[in-house]
């Protein structure tokens, strides 16, 4: 295996050649915000929160899928990036109907945390007030599309880890929505194994267990890297 030496935020680092910028940053406790990325699932580069600057290039690159290069100088927290990241968060808050105060994941939500961490204390963008459905037809779980950020973690975990591929995305653009089977009620799904992995990987309160009240839905996705390691070493 060959190695690369490079810089992140002026820190000299080295890594294996197929490591991504995000992997290396995490190893060295350099904060790069992520939302769609989840260790153990394939990266999709969709949320654009992990965009970083590369010195000498005007193009921003997603840290989750960009491999390190020899001599590369990465900037993870420029003012420009901070502004764009805040706008991404504002966009998500304007798109859905995120009422933290009455959400099952209040206090345990990635979106809420990121807003705080990135300094979003209000939203400059107008709220879109889209009417979105809630599907509570499953006997144990429910989905509130008002809180969905379309990170597709549920889609990926269901397909890549559970192997059921119950979840997918329907429609496009601002009308996109995650669906179970071919847009059937979740409770009627013949592919869903009720394993609950989607609940655990969901970054917000969109997917939750029915027994949970406000602020009670704590997500645990640490099983993912564990599962992955166990499968790989088997």
């Amino acid at each position: 295996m060959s190695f690369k030496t490079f810089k992140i935020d002026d820190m000299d680092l080295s890594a294996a050649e197929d490591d991504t910028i995000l992997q290396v940053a995490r190893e060295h406790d350099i904060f790069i915000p992520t939302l769609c990325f989840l260790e153990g699932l394939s990266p999709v580069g969709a949320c654009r929160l992990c965009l970083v600057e590369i010195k000498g290039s005007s193009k921003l690159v997603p840290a989750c899928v960009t491999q390190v290069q020899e001599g590369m100088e990465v900037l993870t927290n420029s003012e420009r990036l901070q502004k764009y990241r805040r706008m991404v968060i504002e966009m998500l808050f304007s798109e859905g109907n995120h009422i933290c105060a009455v959400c099952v994941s209040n206090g345990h939500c990635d979106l809420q945390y990121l807003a705080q961490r990135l300094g979003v204390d209000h939203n400059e963008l107008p709220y879109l007030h889209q009417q979105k459905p809630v599907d509570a037809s499953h006997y144990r779980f429910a989905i509130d599309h008002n809180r969905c950020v379309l990170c597709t973690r549920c889609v990926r975990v269901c397909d890549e880890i559970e192997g059921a591929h119950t979840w997918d995305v329907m429609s496009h653009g601002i009308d996109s929505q995650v669906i179970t089977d071919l847009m059937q009620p979740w409770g009627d799904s013949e592919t869903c194994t009720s394993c609950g992995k989607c609940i655990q990987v969901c970054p917000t309160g969109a997917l939750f267990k029915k027994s949970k009240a406000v602020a009670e839905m704590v997500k645990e996705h640490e099983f993912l890297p564990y599962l992955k390691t166990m499968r790989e070493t088997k």
Partner: protein
Amino acid sequence: MTLDELIPFAESELEEREQYEHEIHVCVSSSCHSSNSEAIKDAIQAEIDAKGMSKTCRVKGVGCMGICAAGPMVAVDPDGVLYEQITPDHAADIVATIDKSPDERLSHPTDTPFFNRQFKIVLENAGKIDPNSIQDYIAADGYTALYKVLNEVMPKGVISRMMRSGLRGRGGAGYPAGLKWSTVAKAKGERKFVICNGDEGDPGAFMDRSIMEADPHRILEGMAIAAYAVGADQGYIYVRAEYPLAIKRLKNAIRQAKKLGFLGDNIFDTPFSFNVDIRLGAGAFVCGEETALIASVEGGRGNPRPRPPYPAAYGLWGYPTLINNAETLANVPSIMRHGAGWFSAIGTEGSKGTKVFALSGRVKNIGLIEVPMGITLREIIFDIGGGIPDGKKFKAVQTGGPSGGCIPEEYLDMPVEYESLKELGSIMGSGGMIVMDETSSMVDVAKYFMEFSMSESCGKCIPCRVGTRQMHDLLDRISKGMGTTHDLHQLEELCDMVQATSLCGLGQSAPNPVVSTLRYFRHEYLELLTDYDPDAAVAADETSEVTQ
């Protein structure tokens, strides 16, 4: 088949053609087709049969003649007479005046700049050959390039010829085609694929459709040469399902080419094998983006993914894949036939060859044109296009569709090149060219394109999914006279953010129509704002000029 067989094949077709004194061409491409041109063709045939002229005169359906606004078009060869706005009732008049002076009421002048200022490579056969006949294509030197390449040139030589020709991708970004070919050729993979991108989706653009409808074999030949050069054995033509006529003709062309052994195993008795299949798109604009197109061909949701890895290294089903636009591939047989030097002598320093444009909007000669690179926008709009109808004044020309921008009068003398258009805040794009006169509101134009991008966003990345909607809402407010200075500021912030952070080209370029109209027509936005203060604006302008 060998060249010895190919040449007699072409000659027999030419001989057959010589038996006829006249050939009547009826356009059967989409635009004329939808105006019932098949019935016109049948009526003329019936008239000829009735007059007993079927030995001396034959009727042929052909591809687009270009001047779509005047359609349905009929041409009489070899006299070079062109008839416009024909109905089946005119059949008798047309047949009666063969050999005599043409019917003045119907004839369309052909010695105009619209015809003599064009330079045709890609469209050289359009309007001349029958797109349903492989014989016609062969008689027009078709498949000779493939034959020669397979028998006389090594794949490396083909690529070097492509590099030297200077051909750049005609789909939008203008990436050098030869470079792309060479990357795919060098990529390692058990298999390789060639994909023809015929998923033309810009509003007002119909270049690829016309090529596929008028000269489908040209695309197949271009693909086969590309496949030989990069080492692929399978090709796909990705066409949107909204182009039924193009699909029908391509399918027919594939069948004919297979029958004659121009596609399939051991083409021209060489070890080279290549098959082509058609894949239909459901008309999503984003599927013109190469990674989304690949996902769609694979049968998945047409979502783009981050690049790198580029399709050249990791494409269809993970194999190295060459994706070229239909017009790019249609240039290939001519480059191979006439040589790289011939091609690179046409056009300008950085932009070689010709470009097909779909000219539409407020211009007299709406239609399809092919012009050498470097021609000015003024020549295209005022000479070839015939200028603005109804005595109105020119205001702007939009190039590059929803990813492009609007260019005002003062830059009309800029040559049409990839770089110069980019400098002006627009792009060459795939070739849509929409002319606008003084009655168009540029804010409405920007809103129209933003609505398009919004409804065509795939929804995968947040900046494009939500940003296009937010920008559209702001443009809507401003265009209705309800916007404020704050709204305009927010719109500009969003433009910058969406350009910089979107995942694919659709999102990155979605703000372009807004940015370019703000650049050249900012006053139109300002005048619509509720808190617009003309005096303050003048003062601000003066200070900005001083600081500049």
